[in-house]
């Protein structure tokens, strides 16, 4: 079940120094004097069949990063290399071939499925847009997809509102894999679901990965969910990756002070493990005019003068296998 077969070729996806700055239009002239630095110089890679988990609190830029990779946004700066091809600046019709290979699963399937189309139409649409197969083969594919995600074949004639949250997410997943993509970006795929349904969907995503050798960029705020599904984890704070590496080592020995407080803040479903937490004070600052130096310094219990002026780079450290962006970690 956990046999890993590394692929000899380079990574499937390579993101370097990616930034997405949204202009904040203010005043009567609606001029952009300030920018929302949603993603600010992020680099990572994902291998074929691998899951990179992206974790962070609201406003950290994790969803924007996912949307940049899917090229739903045109990034401000940096590069995205997919299967050896530079996709950062593709526009219009030239994005269409890319959509076959990179797909998304969204948080709220009720909002991401067209309520006026039946499930058959929803699953057929990507095939029609990409001109895959003919009418008969598309019908077969729709049935096959429903079977893969564990929905009865008669679902094709039904509409999204007739399904429960978990079933709707299965439809969203079926749509995402319809074109046999290589990379699926899952943006909070289980956070809107009931607890007893979450594990069903997580198992499905894992099965699909093994069967179709999918790569996932798995975005979530729930560290336990991310750790469970991911080979590697990247922790984001205010548009930057502050710590990245193997999920197990990050959880066992987090090095960045933010990761430490994030892990310690998670309520553990075990009353014997109560109250050993360091509560982090304050809120996540706005990504518009973020704090100088290390963006975490106003909330960091260990911040020094250097942290206020100098932005730490994400780098290898001696004390742990993961990479950390903190001046105070050696």
């Amino acid at each position, binding site marked *: 079940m956990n046999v890993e077969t590394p692929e000899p070729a380079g990574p499937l996806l390579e993101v370097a120094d990616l930034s997405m700055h949204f202009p904040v239009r203010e005043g009567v002239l609606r001029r952009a004097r300030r920018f929302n630095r949603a993603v600010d110089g992020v680099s990572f890679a994902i291998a074929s069949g691998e899951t990179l988990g992206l974790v962070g609190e609201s406003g950290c830029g994790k969803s924007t990063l996912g949307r940049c990779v899917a090229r739903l946004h045109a990034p401000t700066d940096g590069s995205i290399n997919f299967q050896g091809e530079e996709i950062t600046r593709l526009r219009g019709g030239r994005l269409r071939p890319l959509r076959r290979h990179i797909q998304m699963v969204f948080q709220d399937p009720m909002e991401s499925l067209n309520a006026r189309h039946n499930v058959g139409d929803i699953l057929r649409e990507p095939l029609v847009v990409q001109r895959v197969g003919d009418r008969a083969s598309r019908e077969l594919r729709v049935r096959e997809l429903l079977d893969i995600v564990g929905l009865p074949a008669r679902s094709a004639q039904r509409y999204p509102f007739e399904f429960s949250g978990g079933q709707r997410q299965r439809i969203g997943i079926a749509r995402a894999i319809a074109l046999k993509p290589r990379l699926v970006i899952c943006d909070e795929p289980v956070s809107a679901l009931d607890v*007893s*349904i979450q594990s069903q969907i997580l198992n499905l995503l894992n099965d699909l990965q093994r069967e179709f050798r999918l790569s996932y960029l798995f975005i979530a705020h729930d560290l*336990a969910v991310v750790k*469970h599904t991911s080979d590697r984890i990247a922790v984001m704070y205010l548009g930057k990756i502050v710590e990245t590496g193997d999920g197990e080592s990050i959880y066992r020995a987090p090095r960045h002070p933010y990761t430490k407080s*994030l892990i310690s803040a998670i*309520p*553990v*479903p075990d009353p014997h493990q109560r109250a050993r937490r360091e509560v982090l004070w304050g*809120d996540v600052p706005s990504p518009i005019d973020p704090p100088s130096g290390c963006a975490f310094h106003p909330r960091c219990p260990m911040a020094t003068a250097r942290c206020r002026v100098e932005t730490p780079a994400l780098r290898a450290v001696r004390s742990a296998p993961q990479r950390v962006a903190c001046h105070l970690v050696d």
Partner: protein
Amino acid sequence: MNGPSSRADVALLAVNGLTVEFDTDEGVVRAVDGVTFDVKPGETLGIVGESGCGKSVTALSIMRLLPQPMGRIVGGEILFDGENLRQLPLAAMQRIRGARIGMVFQEPMTALNPVHTIGRQLAESLLLHEGLRPNDALRQSMDMLHRVGIPAPDVRMTEYPHQLSGGMRQRVVMAIALACKPDLLIADEPTTALDVTVQAQILALMRELQDDLGMAVVLITHDLGVIAETSDRAVVMYAGRIAEHGSVYDIFDRPAHPYTQGLLTSIPTLSTMRKSKLPVIEGMVPSLADLPQGCRFENRCAHRQPRCAEAPPERELVAGTHGVSCYRWRELTPSAAANP
């Protein structure tokens, strides 16, 4: 959590056989069916369950805030300090709400009035319930904001809800709920809309205020972690009924109901093995309009027997205050015999 006869004398809140119905397009549905629990002064009772289990409806029923005219209490009693809230005249109920029972909701933005300043909303309950003069009410409001950890309370008093962050808003809602130092706080998913680091702040704050004010808390959540972290005792609800209740140690260490057992094993924790197959509860929560005849969990239960579909199991005591509604709990709880 015994019957009213033995415990009502010490319970601050005793809910006995609460049954609530709603008129819907699909006819009358029973959202809460025979729910019984009690809360003692100063303790925290957690109510945990998934969407549609009736946990919020239970809270709204206690406050007599069910949406009208669709929702109504059709059975049971709600004894608060010995008084049946169900039979209280509206005016008397209004004197209890906000003064002796405070409430915090999930979404602080909808709980606050967007067109009134924070100060005005805080002072309102003090003016109403405590009969303070406006200046005293404002001073006390400021103290309360300070108390819930809001920096520069004098500035915040003049601001509007949209000017605050989610965590700050929830602190304000908490300040309003606690302004009159209630005996009981009902918190319905108070941290669900918040980030984990902010959630930790709010839970710590709630614990601290509870210690100071000595109030009891009914904490409603879908998050088993939050229950384990905060509650003395817990009630597990499923599809309108109580599946299991007991101390948090009963619930987490020796769950007796297959639903509780399933919930606890299906959630990934930081210690589950990467990409391992998670145990699942098959199927989904039944619609309230189409509930199973017998045990409500029967159609998803791996241990079901024919009798489970015939009639709902009665509540049985596992030990002490640990109770469960399942025909087969003895076979399914390995430690049942060894229980102290």
